[in-house]
């Protein structure tokens, strides 16, 4: 799978008001920007910078990331299940990559 | 007369047939695998680079040790044989038993490099060398080490080596003992997990003396 693809898992069903865990793993090398101590030459890093969580197109959580997070990060965000619909994650990295992924949830 | 002869031949014939039948049953001995089969499988598992195939020839002591799963399972005769063989395999440095340089010894003790070759990267250079001692031993206080071998913390201090007595015959005798263990551990502990560094040439006699100095010298960080 290419860099930027993700596995997104949410419970299929939830009770109204229940706090669920939105779990995801994003394929990404998360390499930091390095400077060679001898030559001073800088190798730019490649890492995710922002992650947003939407519930039915309403922004619920926003997370800023940097190179300190390890490769292929596993992220779990809490979400209060208010209504059925679509949970969407949108994320971008420092080289201009932008991706989205959705999953459906039914709330009783 | 003829009847007895006939009955006798019949008896011999029946015994002969029954023994032949017994041979057809797989005995416990046949279920074991032959050393040639094991060697063939082993050879098939390595890249056929002639630079490294010498590595898999077992010497006499290795062959003896391979027959027993541990030191404790060995019969006294085998233990004696290995000790006898290995005591012949110790070489001392050019200038004999004299204290070496513990700083060099420290570098060798901490280095995990030397002897590892793989065609997919992660190979050591031919000039790399080291004992990788921390894999199995605890040596300096506070440095993570393994527990496969005995702890060597404050080794020189434990044996009472001080600046005053290090150059006496007793002090040098202790140095010689430690030198022998690091050079060829099997001369005292047959079939131990510890490699025979000096015997195999992984470390030169001078390297081994430096390591022994690092362990015993009163100025060495091991004993501070």
């Amino acid at each position, binding site marked *: 799978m290419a860099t930027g693809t993700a596995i997104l898992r949410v419970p299929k069903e939830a009770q109204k008001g229940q706090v669920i865990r939105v779990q995801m793993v994003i394929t990404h090398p998360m390499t930091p920007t390095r400077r060679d101590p001898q030559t001073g030459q800088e190798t730019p890093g490649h890492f995710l910078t922002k992650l947003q969580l939407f519930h039915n197109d309403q922004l619920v959580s926003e997370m800023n990331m940097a190179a300190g997070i390890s490769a292929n990060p596993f992220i779990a965000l809490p979400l209060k299940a208010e209504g059925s619909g679509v949970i969407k994650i949108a994320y971008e990295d420092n080289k201009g990559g932008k991706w989205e992924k959705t999953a459906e949830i039914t709330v009783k | 007369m003829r009847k007895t002869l006939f009955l006798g031949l019949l008896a011999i014939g029946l015994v002969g047939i029954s023994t032949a039948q017994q041979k057809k049953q797989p005995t416990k001995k046949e279920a074991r695998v032959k050393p040639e089969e094991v060697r063939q499988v*082993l050879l098939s598992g390595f890249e056929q680079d002639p630079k490294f195939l010498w590595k898999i020839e077992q010497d006499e002591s*290795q062959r003896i040790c*391979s027959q027993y799963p541990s030191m404790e399972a060995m019969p006294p005769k085998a233990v004696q044989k290995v000790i006898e063989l290995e005591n012949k395999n110790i070489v001392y440095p050019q200038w004999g038993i004299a204290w070496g340089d513990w700083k060099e010894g420290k570098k060798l003790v901490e280095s995990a490099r030397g002897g590892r070759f793989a065609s*997919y990267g992660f190979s050591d250079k031919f000039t790399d060398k080291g004992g990788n001692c921390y894999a199995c031993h605890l040596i300096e206080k*506070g440095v993570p080490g393994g527990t496969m071998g005995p702890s060597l913390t404050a080794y020189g201090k434990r044996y009472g080596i001080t600046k005053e007595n290090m150059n006496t015959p007793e002090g040098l005798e202790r140095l010689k003992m430690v030198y022998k263990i690091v050079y060829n551990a099997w001369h005292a502990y047959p079939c131990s997990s510890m490699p025979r560094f000096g015997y195999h040439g992984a470390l030169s006699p001078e390297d081994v003396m430096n390591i022994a100095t690092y362990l015993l010298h009163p100025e060495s960080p091991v004993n501070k």
Partner: protein
Amino acid sequence: MRKILLTSAVFGLACAGFLGYQTVKAQDQELSPEEEIRLVQEFNRMMAEGINPGEIWAEMGKEAFKKYNLDKCDFGLGPGKVEGALAQLPRYFPDAKRVMDLETRIGWCLQQYAGMTPEQVKKFATQCWGKSQCMGEYDAIVMYVSMASNGQKFSVNLNDPQVKRMYEIGKQIYYARIGPWDFNCATCHAGQKEARIRATKLWSADRPGEAGQAVSIFPKYLVRWSQPMTMHYRYAECIRQMRWPTFEPHSDLAVAISAFLYGTANGTEIKVPGIGR
């Protein structure tokens, strides 16, 4: 009277000395390495919750499986059937006339159904060795097939004489001292005494259940290389550390070691992928 006092004094001193020695020995155990190890174990426990990043490779593997025509490959339960395949391997395959473990079988099927030569198969299998964050299709296929047996228990058929023969050969090699550092698998992974190499605990084939716990989580996702490690890669790395010559994947040596390890692991539940440092 004096004699009794003297003897009891000497005895008391000896006891004190003995207890003192024990305390000093125990203090050796309370060095910071123990703390470090506890933190590593806590880290491993936390990593076991949630999604294992190795599942990315399992998703890749599902597509690669079809791409290389492996739905024609018989792992012992019928062509293309992967559920339970890992649990009964290694086994004897009459079409190849060899005992094979999972990776050897995949290598053989790649030659039969994807038109690869043995050199191409070796290159395909080792494309991620020595790298990190390598999205290898071979690792993906192994991950996909292994995960399909999750929840089942290892049941290698040791009554089959061919498998038993490989098990015995594997066992002999496991305990045979070879090479310029006199190492073998048993140097680290045998014996009754619990030991560790630097800060990592070692499992032992002689202590019941431990070999099973070690192999039931392979392929294992390694955080330090951000990619999974398959069994044959693990053998190659161990063999490199033992100062033996370079390991050849999919060889009879691999099958022998697999037969011994998986045979010892019989009865352990499969929980792929594992995660570790």
